[in-house]
């Protein structure tokens, strides 16, 4: 570099720019390298899940060669599960429970958030704060008194118990999220609608819901994730196989079989993880917005 500096006026600047650029390139390369290490570590379990799901029981029990690769890939595990009445039951239960939970939670959350963010009444501040507090109450704090309560309601070992209880996990956060989104809508918009003679229902349906659509999608994804993946409540309140949903069904029923059923178990995990992964692939931005909104908004 010293020789180039001596040759002309212009080169030192160029060299400096070049070194900065090189530095930046190095930083970028280093970032990519380090990130690759993290990605490999983070993706080991999903990778192994898929690999095992493609193995036959014979291949798993033989223990020949590396466990990380499949020698004779087969879809037998998936075919077995897809035609297995019990697994179909878990899947269907998960689907309808999650569907109802999402609809119920979003209805409750949108109505409440509209009221709390726009129609301010006595105590609305207290309720908003209370909503946030209940969001911080984890399910493991209340599952024992709830066991007594759902027992008294006659809902033990009845899948409907989840439709009753999952909204308690989803609604507080969804409401909080929607309050944030609704509050950011300019007041002039609904005032204009009011002057035009719209009633509150029309304002909600024609102004708020369309404008806050990104928030609604984020909250819906959250409610879906809760309904699809929750484990404690179904484990505590459902004990027979026909009432189970995917999470408990897989963990409790499939493991009872012989040791080498791991191919089937992992295939079941792949199938159960597929819906959230699919949703996430297509709606990642909303998903991320929902994750971060809880802390950056409101």
């Amino acid at each position: 570099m010293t020789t180039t500096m001596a040759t002309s006026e212009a080169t030192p600047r160029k060299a400096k720019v070049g070194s900065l650029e090189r530095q930046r390139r190095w930083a970028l390369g280093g970032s990519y390298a380090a990130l690759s290490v993290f990605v490999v570590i983070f993706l080991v379990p999903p990778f192994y899940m898929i690999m095992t799901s493609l193995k036959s029981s014979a291949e798993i029990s033989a223990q020949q060669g590396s466990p990380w690769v499949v020698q004779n890939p087969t879809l037998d595990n998936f075919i077995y599960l897809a035609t297995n009445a019990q697994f179909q039951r878990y899947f269907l239960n998960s689907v309808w429970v999650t569907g109802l939970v999402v609809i119920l939670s979003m209805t409750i959350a949108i109505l409440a958030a509209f009221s709390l963010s726009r129609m301010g009444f006595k105590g609305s501040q207290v309720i908003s704060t209370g909503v946030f507090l209940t969001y911080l109450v984890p399910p493991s704090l209340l599952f024992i008194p709830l066991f007594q309560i759902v027992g008294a309601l006659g809902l033990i070992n009845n899948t409907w118990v989840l439709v009753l209880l999952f909204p308690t996990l989803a609604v507080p956060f969804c409401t909080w999220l929607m309050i944030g989104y609704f509050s950011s809508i300019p007041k002039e918009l609904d005032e204009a609608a009011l002057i035009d003679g719209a009633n509150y229902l029309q304002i909600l349906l024609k102004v708020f819901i369309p404008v806050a659509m990104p928030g609604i999608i984020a909250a819906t994804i959250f409610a879906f994730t809760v309904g699809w993946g929750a484990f404690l409540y179904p484990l505590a309140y459902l004990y027979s196989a026909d009432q189970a949903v995917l999470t408990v069904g897989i963990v409790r029923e499939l493991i009872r079989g012989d040791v080498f059923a791991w191919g089937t178990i992992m295939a079941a995990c792949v199938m159960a993880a597929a819906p959230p992964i699919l949703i996430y692939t297509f709606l990642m931005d909303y998903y991320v917005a929902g994750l971060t909104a809880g802390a950056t908004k409101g």
Partner: protein
Amino acid sequence: MANGRTIAIGIGTEASAASRRAGSLKKLARRRSTTALLLCAPLIVLIVGLKLYPTFYAIFLSMLDRKMEHFVGLDNFAFLLTRPSFQLVIFQSCLFAITAVVMKAVIGFIVAHLMHNIRGRNQRIWRGLLLVPWVIPLALSTLTWWWLFDPSYSALNWTLNWLGFESIPFLGTTWNARIAVIAVNVWFGAPFFMIMYLAALKSVPEQLYEAAAIDGATAWQKLRFITLPMMRNIILITMLYSLIVTFADFDIVRILTNGGPQDSTHLFATYAFNVGIESGNIPRGASVSLFMFPVLATLAFFVLRDVLKRSREVST
């Protein structure tokens, strides 16, 4: 005033019309707040019925004897505190929550910075890949971890052997099992921190770094005097929030070790499940859960204080 009726009533009308108008405004306001309350009703019913009432019911339950016939005051709590297995639960819960949250925060911070160096489309792809652990239902990914740790067919041990190391009984000894459950929690939760910190990093104005660069600041100085102060709030609130969730975690320990070996990895939630649901001692299970309450309430207080402070800043 043109029509006959108003003239006939005379001078008093002016005031009564005004008061009537005020009355109808008040009525309108009242109707508005009735509608508002009605729209909130489902939420209030849900929270009061399935969150608030169970909380008080838990306190009541925890003060009954095993058969739920007699009132025993605080005996359940006192009894639990004398039990070595419960003392282990307290220790393990604190160890689990604090270690896991600190590690998640550190890894999340590092990965967020690496990610921040990459701009544009590529960042989306890497972010997408790194978020996968957070998206798979935890119960199912924990099952996969269990299979990875499986004593006789462990793929991790196969790799260790292949590299020339001895096999490790991942879930067989106390400390191995403790580290394993923490590792799974870190694996699951670090992407959440990464996303939060990345969002915070993006909100730090670029000019601050440019100004610092002109002043000749080193990378460490930029981190120490710009990034950390600017991100302080998000770092703290994410950690507080995660402490609550991690402290009350259930899925990982339940599936991976179910408290073993020798009850050394039980958390409050899994221990409460074993005592309350599986052994059928509802009052004692309720008291185990309630031991979490003071810790969670303290953490929630700080989270709430921060959130309310910030929403006030936003509104003014």
